[in-house]
């Protein structure tokens, strides 16, 4: 995992330098080129790239992700420590919401394949997939926060504040989970072990529940790794819309403002999460489908 993180940080570090414009390029430039040079010098941006990377790595080993180049009075570590828990909280809620809604819907659709129930639940799931968060979010706010005044419009101050962002964020993933589960289960209709179970006289629902679900959920499990990594590191659209102090906004804005240290720092955080989650996913395969081997 360590060499992998090294590779990722190196690639990210070099990639951001390829993009035109630097962190200190602004609408208004300082009056003298000397000042511009001084700023670069202060943040060691005038050194050769490899030396900069070595310096950065040295800091990371000591647990210091460096100062943010946009928010110059804050260190990247501080920003992550402050924002990540918020994003993770919202992401976890959205993940649970997505599973809580998506799994039953997918199961139901698979059980009623070809019937009205299948089409109805698939239709709902697909709408969740097709209608983007930047439409769902404002719509929910209009209807439930402005018109009915059931929920607050934005900010994060109480559990009530979490509900609309959770739904906005989770709906899209719920739709995908439902579609993937339905498909995973349908693919097994005629698998040998299912036929065997049916031959033993188990009812259809029991077969679905005991045998088919277990293997049919594998695509959802595969998808859960990247999905959860995305959710836990926040969503730009949702955090922007509901003014939630997570790190999702920084994920996008740091790229736009060429905040080099912040970009690489966030990439590292994201990569650690992703690698860990994918490891869990691999373990989950083995648990769900004991025949899975990795050789």
């Amino acid at each position: 995992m360590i060499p992998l993180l090294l590779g990722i940080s190196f690639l990210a570090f070099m990639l951001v330098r390829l993009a035109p414009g630097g962190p200190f390029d602004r609408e208004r430039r300082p009056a003298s080129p000397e000042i511009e040079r001084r700023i670069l010098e202060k943040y060691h941006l005038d050194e050769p790239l490899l030396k900069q990377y070595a310096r950065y790595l040295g800091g990371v080993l000591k647990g210091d992700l460096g100062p943010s180049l946009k928010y110059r009075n804050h260190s990247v570590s501080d920003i992550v420590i402050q924002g990540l828990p918020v994003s993770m909280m919202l992401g976890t809620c959205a993940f649970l919401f997505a599973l809580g809604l998506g799994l039953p819907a997918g199961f139901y659709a698979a059980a009623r394949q070809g019937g009205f129930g299948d089409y109805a639940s698939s239709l709902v799931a697909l709408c969740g997939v097709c209608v983007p968060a930047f439409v769902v979010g404002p719509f929910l706010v209009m209807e439930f926060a402005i018109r009915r005044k059931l929920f607050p419009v934005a900010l994060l101050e109480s559990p009530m504040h979490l509900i609309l962002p959770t739904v906005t964020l989770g709906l899209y993933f719920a739709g995908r989970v439902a579609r993937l589960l339905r498909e995973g289960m349908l693919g097994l209709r005629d698998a040998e072990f299912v036929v065997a179970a049916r031959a033993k006289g188990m009812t259809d629902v029991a077969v679905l529940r005991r045998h088919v679900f277990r293997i049919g959920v594998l695509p959802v499990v595969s998808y859960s790794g990247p999905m959860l990594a995305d959710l836990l590191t926040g969503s730009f659209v949702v955090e922007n819309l509901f003014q939630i102090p997570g790190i999702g906004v920084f994920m996008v804005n740091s790229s736009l403002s060429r905040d080099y240290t912040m970009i690489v720092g966030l990439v590292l955080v994201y990569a650690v999460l992703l690698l860990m989650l994918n490891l869990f996913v691999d373990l989950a395969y083995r648990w769900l489908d004991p025949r899975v081997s990795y050789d």
Partner: protein
Amino acid sequence: MGNCRFKVQGLLALGLATILILSGCGRREPRADVVIINGTDPESLDPAIITALEDYRIVPGLFEGLTRIDPVNAQAIPGLAERWDVDEGGRAYLFYFRPGLRWSTGDPLTAHDVVFSWLRLLDPRTAADYAAQLYCVKNGEAYSTNGITDASRVGIRAIDDLRLRVELNHPVPYFLDLCASPTLSVVPRKTIEALGDQWLQARPLPSSGSHTLEIWRLNDKIRFRKNPLYWDAANTANNTVEFLPVGSPATALNLYERGAADIIWDKDLVPAELLKDLKQRPDFHDFPYIGTYFVRFNTTRPPFHDARVRRALALAVDKRRIVERIIKGGESPAGHLVPTGVANHLAPESLGQDEAAARRLLSDAGFPQGEGFPVFEYLFDSAAGGGSKVHAKIGVELQEMWRRELGVRMELRQMEKKVYLAAQTGLDYDLSRSSWVGDYNDPNTFLDLFLSNNGNNRTGWKDERYDGLMRQANVEQNPRRRSELLRQAESILVAEEAVVIPLYFYRGFQFYDANRISGIHGNILGMNPVRTIRNSEATRTNGGVVHDRDARASAAAGAGKPQ
């Protein structure tokens, strides 16, 4: 579906969610007296670092300068200095401090603190973007660019604790305005020397302004509390103020509508598509504002090196249509670069709208009916965050106007902000969308952009006459004659040479309920000091304003848990 796995999952989910939610809450504070939606998150609160309007609007609450701004008319009025003498025909200032000034931590605040703050701004190690605001001070520029290292040669000297003498290179009619600029405000020496770049994380943070910094959480909120040791504390109209960084105009409006915020004071946070309707409301306030939207030509690229071509394009623009159909905020079409209403400004000659003349000029330049005119590009940035896509909309209108009137073909080239800036600086464009907001109330803040050697020129345009007129104006002591020189220079810029096409002058917008909120004014700088803003409901309910369920809930939740 009586699936037991779902049940277990559901229970687990519920439990986990509860834990998470409980852990995430309870860190909230009671509602502040005044909650202001301030625009995008301030990059810094360090006077030497800040450059953005959002930062500029709130930093004066923490750090004050020798002068401060009168909220009604944006004039500089006495701040830390109670009076001053002007000597040597405007080349020297002697400031007299108020006796007994103190930092919010109780330490005495003296003229020596100003010397430290200003030298820090000039110090190359600080690398302040706006160090140039003190280049008018004797040896200021040399000290800033390493020409001299001896700080005592810079024309800033504390005679004693209460007197400060400043020597300038030449008379600067707007020097007192500069002293009120947040960049030149007074910062705490001890804290800075102890903590370096992290000095703003000190708590308590010594402040020289009307408020102290209580909370600064990125992307979350900034909270000020009244500074009881401020010299004018008796007139501070509120106990606590919160600034919310909001990126989306829709969210800003929603928060305001539900009472979670009292004021919106960023023009980019007013949804452009709703302006027509919003303008009718009693809580909508607008005012002229020191900013101009314009188009830059890259004068190094043919055919735009030819002034006739530039003038032709300028003459063919229907600015009224853009203002009335796209911007809709009551902005006025601009004939020149410096906004109407700026002090010391005389209106220059300007090009109106005259399509026939435009076609003639284009034909003179060798492109009758646009024949043979190369396809060119209009560069603009995406304005992410604001989201009203005004730049793209203006580009679309210009494209169509020039196609219809002149028969020339323009393509739109949208770029992400930093790429756009890099392209503009590197003169890698044909035409480019631009705007400028003045730093102080004088035409110079606009006109010095287009000096040959200014890094913000970005047109490749160099003109001896223009530079000469500007130089002359800079040393001219008679204000009337100075204004006339600036007028001549601006005439060259916008009419004769047409290096830029001014499109419209900005207007500032604020949302607040005037029945409740007072002490906020629309002045040309768009900067209202925090100290004067009063929320009459806040003072009645003793600190916790309650006009919404959300606010009440959060006030109750926060009451027992002081931070």
